[in-house]
C-alpha cells in the first residue's frame, strides 16, 4: 500500500480528511493524532516527489526528503504562533497546521498529475475540467520561464529594476505587460490547437491509462467521509 499506487481520488480523500479531522476533533489530542499520521504518511515509500520532480530512487531516502519538506514548511508557523498566542493555543493550532502541511506535502509528492487527469477522465469528468487544471499546471513553468526571460531581455535594453518605489512600479509595468500581452495573444493559437486536436465540447475522450480503482479504495473513501461527518456531528451536538 504505497502512496504511489493508490488511486488519485484516494490520495485526495486522505489529504482532505486528515486536516478536516484535525480541526474537528477536540484539541490537542485530535491534532496530535492526525499530525502523527500525516507525518508518518510522508515516510511511506513510493511517495516520490511527483510534482517537485527532483528525481527519486525508491526506498526511504525520498520519504525523508518529503518529511523534511513538511517539517521545514510547518516550523515557521509554530514560531509565529508563539509570538502571538499562549502555549496551549499555539500547540492546538500548531498541530492542526502541521497536519495540513504534512498531508498536503505528502499529496504533492504522491500525486502524479497525469494519473489525476486520467482518473478524472475515466470517472466521467468533462475533458474541459481536466484540461483547466492540467493546462494551468503545465502553463505555469512555461510562463514563469518567459517572465524571467523578459526580465533579462528588458534589462539588456537598459531597464533598471531598482531605484525608488515609483521607478520600481514603472519597471514592474515594463516587465509585467510584455508577459501578459504575449500570453493573451497566444490564447487564439491555443484555442486553434485544441480545436484541431479534437478537444471540443461533448466528446467521449478515451482514457489512456486509467489508474485502477479497486472497490476497497472506493469504500475507504466513503468511510473517511463518514468518519469526518460523524466527528463533526459529535463535536457540535
Amino acid at each position: 500500500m504505497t502512496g504511489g499506487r493508490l488511486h488519485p481520488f484516494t490520495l485526495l480523500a486522505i489529504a482532505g480528511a486528515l486536516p478536516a479531522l484535525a480541526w474537528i476533533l477536540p484539541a490537542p489530542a485530535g491534532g496530535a493524532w492526525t499530525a502523527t499520521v500525516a507525518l508518518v504518511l510522508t515516510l511511506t515509500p513510493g511517495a516520490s516527489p511527483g510534482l517537485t520532480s527532483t528525481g527519486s530512487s525508491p526506498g526511504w531516502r525520498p520519504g525523508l526528503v518529503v518529511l523534511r519538506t513538511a517539517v521545514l514548511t510547518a516550523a515557521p508557523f509554530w514560531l509565529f504562533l508563539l509570538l502571538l498566542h499562549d502555549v496551549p493555543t499555539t500547540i492546538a493550532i500548531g498541530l492542526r497546521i502541521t497536519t495540513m502541511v504534512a498531508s498536503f506535502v505528502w499529496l504533492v509528492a504522491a500525486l502524479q498529475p497525469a494519473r489525476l487527469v486520467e482518473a478524472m477522465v475515466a470517472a466521467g469528468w468533462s475533458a474541459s475540467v481536466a484540461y483547466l487544471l492540467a493546462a494551468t499546471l503545465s502553463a505555469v513553468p512555461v510562463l514563469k520561464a518567459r517572465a524571467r526571460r523578459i526580465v533579462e531581455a528588458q534589462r539588456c535594453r537598459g531597464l533598471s529594476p531598482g531605484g525608488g518605489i515609483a521607478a520600481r512600479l514603472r519597471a514592474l509595468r515594463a516587465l509585467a505587460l510584455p508577459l501578459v500581452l504575449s500570453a493573451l495573444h497566444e490564447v487564439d493559437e491555443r484555442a486553434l490547437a485544441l480545436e484541431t486536436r479534437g478537444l471540443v465540447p461533448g466528446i467521449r475522450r478515451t482514457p489512456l491509462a486509467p489508474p485502477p480503482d479497486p472497490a476497497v479504495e472506493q469504500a475507504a473513501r466513503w468511510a473517511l467521509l463518514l468518519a469526518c461527518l460523524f466527528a463533526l456531528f459529535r463535536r457540535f451536538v
Partner: protein
Amino acid sequence: MRSLTLESASFWYPATEAPALREVSLEVAQGEVVALVGALGAGASTLLLVAADLAPRVTGGRLTGSVARGDRSGIVLPTPWTQASGMAFTVWDEVAFGPANLGWPTHEIARQVDRALEQLELVPLASRDPATLSGGELQRVIIASILAMDPGLVLFDEPAAELDAEAARALWRLIRLQAKEGKAVLLATSALDALPDVADRVVWLEDGAVRAIGTPELLADVAACDAGLGTSVASVWWASGLPGPYPLTVAHALQRWR
C-alpha cells in the same frame, strides 16, 4: 480523389475591411504535396486556416465562396509552444492527446502513436516531459501529434521555422512520405530551395489572390525572381543578367553550364 476543393473562396478577418483571401480557387488531391508561397501577408496562413475549417468557425470573420473537404484535416501551426495540449506530461501522452479525443480504442491509439513517433524519430524522447524539450524537438512532437490522428488532409504552416538543418531535411522527407501514403498535403513555407524536391505543385499567392499555380519550375520564372520568390540558384542566374530560362537548382545549373 480530391481531398480539398476551394471555389472562389474569399475571407475577411473580424473587424477588417480588406479581405485576407480574394476569390481563391484551388484543388488538392490525395497523394499530392501543394506548396503555398508568397510575400508576408499574401494570405498563405489564412488559406491554411480556412482549409482546416478553423476560419471562420474559431477565428471569427466572414467566408464567401465554397470549401469542400473530402477528409478529416489536421494543421501544424508555426508556434509549437502554443500547440502543446497542456494535458500531457510525457511526449507519448502528448502525441496520444488527439487520438484520445477522437475516442479511438486504446490499441488503435497505441498503434498510431508509436507509428508517428517512429516517423518523427521521437521514440527515445517518448517518456520525456514536453516542457523540457527544445523548440525543434517540440515542433516534431506537435507534427507527430497531428499525424497520429491519421488526417487525410495534412496542413503545415512554416513547419521548418524552428528546426535546425538536419531536422528540416528529415521533415521534407517525411512530407514526401505522407503524400506517398495517399495523404493530401498543403504546406506554406518560405524555404523555397526545398520545394523542387518536396512539392508537386506550387501556388503563388499575392495580396490574398492566386497569382500563379504550376510545378516548382514556377520558382525559376522571371516573374517569380522579380518578386523575390525565385530559388537561390534561379535568383543568382536572374541577377547575373544571363538569358533565361533560369536553372531551378544546383543540379539544373550544372547541366546548363557544361
